[in-house]
């Protein structure tokens, strides 16, 4: 089954602003990262998937349903977490999620049960009876996630779920999304402008820019390259680069850092040996995953 498929999907606002241009992409169930800068067309795509906006041209299908002709059927099986503040401050999380569960067609008692269960799954316990107005940003994001999950959808659309969270909160939210995608068996589309964030939890990555598709692929196909070591010395960077080159290590420069592909444990020893021999002040030496970002980095002109 194809989870989401678009074919030459185009959306222009008022005939002038192009939000999506000829986007053709098909993704399988799993955790999908939708990456792009602000204004790349991520939110527009989500609204089209929900059937809230009609596309200017092209075709789209979600869970093998067409949101342009049968939006209610799509929305019954999809949960949506918007990017912006979306919670009435004077209701408690339990009341709000119960009410929204009923709006998704759950019977009254089921809505109440599932509301407290999903709130527990996202990590809200006794707090759920307090008004949402007093919640921290992290708790509010969890409530927004819970309301998207309350009716047990087959697909979650999360628009910037880590927005406004501190690093610990981001990690917790990403771990939660990962759990939903793997343990709960619900497909997730995560939107973000931070590639480094979503690449950690996704199976598939879709990158768009200016409404156009940059690349869509499974993440293991993208990061087949090995990990790299980043070396930074306070002085003598050129000297070290020369020395490492003579040791047959393919060194690349990245600003003040040297990047060396990590072949095996010996690579560490070779680098540390070289630094010690040259008697350079070592600032840092750490392992970095080969970042998907590099796949999207603009190619530098060959002749400056």
């Amino acid at each position: 089954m194809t989870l989401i498929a678009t074919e030459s999907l185009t959306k222009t606002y008022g005939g002038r602003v192009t939000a999506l241009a000829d986007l053709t992409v098909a993704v399988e169930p799993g955790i999908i990262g939708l990456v792009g800068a602000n204004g790349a067309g991520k939110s527009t795509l989500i609204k089209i998937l929900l059937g809230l906006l009609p596309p200017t041209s092209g075709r789209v299908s979600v869970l093998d349903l067409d949101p342009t002709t049968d939006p209610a059927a799509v929305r019954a099986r999809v949960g949506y977490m918007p990017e912006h503040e979306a919670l009435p401050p004077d209701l408690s999380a339990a009341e709000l999620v119960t009410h929204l569960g009923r709006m998704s067609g759950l019977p009254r008692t089921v809505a109440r049960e599932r509301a407290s269960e999903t709130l527990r799954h996202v990590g809200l316990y006794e707090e759920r009876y307090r008004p949402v107005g007093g919640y921290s940003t992290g708790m509010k994001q969890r409530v927004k996630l819970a309301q998207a999950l309350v009716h047990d959808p087959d697909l979650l659309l999360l628009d910037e779920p880590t927005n406004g969270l501190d690093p610990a909160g981001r990690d917790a939210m990403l771990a939660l999304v990962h759990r939903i995608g793997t343990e709960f068996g619900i497909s997730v589309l995560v939107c973000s402008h931070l590639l480094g964030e979503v690449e950690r939890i996704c199976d598939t990555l879709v990158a768009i820019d200016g409404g156009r598709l940059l690349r869509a692929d499974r993440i293991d196909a993208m990061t087949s390259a090995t990990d790299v070591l980043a070396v930074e010395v306070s002085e003598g960077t050129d000297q070290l680069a020369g020395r490492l080159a003579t040791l047959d290590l393919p060194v690349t420069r990245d600003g003040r850092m040297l990047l060396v592909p990590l072949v095996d444990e010996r690579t560490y020893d070779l680098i540390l040996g070289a630094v010690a021999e040259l008697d350079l002040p070592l600032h840092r030496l750490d392992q970095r995953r080969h970042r998907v970002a590099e796949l999207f980095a603009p190619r530098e002109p060959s002749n400056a």
Partner: protein
Amino acid sequence: MPEPTGVIHDIGYQRYTGPRLGRRHVFGALYLHGLRTVFGLGRSAKAKIFPWLVVGIVTVVAAGLAAVRSQLGEVVMTYAQFADAMSWLVIFFVAVAAPELVSRDLRSGVLPLYFSRPLPRDDYALAKLLSLVSALWLLLGGPQLVMFLAAAFTTSDGLRGTWNELLDLLPGLLYAGLWAVVFAAIGLLVASLTGKRAFAAGGIVAVFLMTTPIVGVLSILPSHAVNELAFLASPSTLVGGVGTWALGDLLVPEGQGGGMPIGSFGPVYAIVAVLLVTACTALLLLRYRKVAAR
């Protein structure tokens, strides 16, 4: 070996395979939720003060009227007149209830959570409108029922008296329904334009009160036809005009004078009232079409 008791197992996430209710049930749930919201049920104590104050006032007035009627046998107000007399209270009630129903949702940004669900956007607006209509009708009709019960139990004509009383009550309830529909349609449309509750309340009161002087000016112009059509200019007098035409002496008993000098323009009033409600509802739906696309 038996399992130890008293241990809570985390059974993990459970998929839901039970029934999912259709559009009608969702509409009903939203409607009931709206009706409860208007009266502050399921909300903070502060939100209950005003609605129940108004309910208290209309009930006390109705009880007073019923007492006078049963003790002195004097009809101070007909059922329909009761609705007219309470119109000021209704205006303030709408000014509080309508923003509570729609402006709050606009301001908190909760609407995307509604519109990403199967519920069609028109259903959202119509359910809210129906909640407000019902609430206003209960507000005006409930006290009439009190008056009816008092009159029915103290009537000296037996069953026939009760039956006559019922025939008086029913037009009164219909008239209350007209008040409810006109005021709810206008009030909700105004409230749906802004997310700020204070602005919405001010706007609603302004629409109802600012139009009254226009009626005053039109009714002293030197044209007889304009005088008779003057009451179209304000929602309250428009409803009064329809009542005068449709209910006649059920609204204002003979000998009391009063009534509205609308001449033979009665049907015009009825048509304008229908058009006004239709237009307000259509604009409300259009408004939510725009909001939903954002």
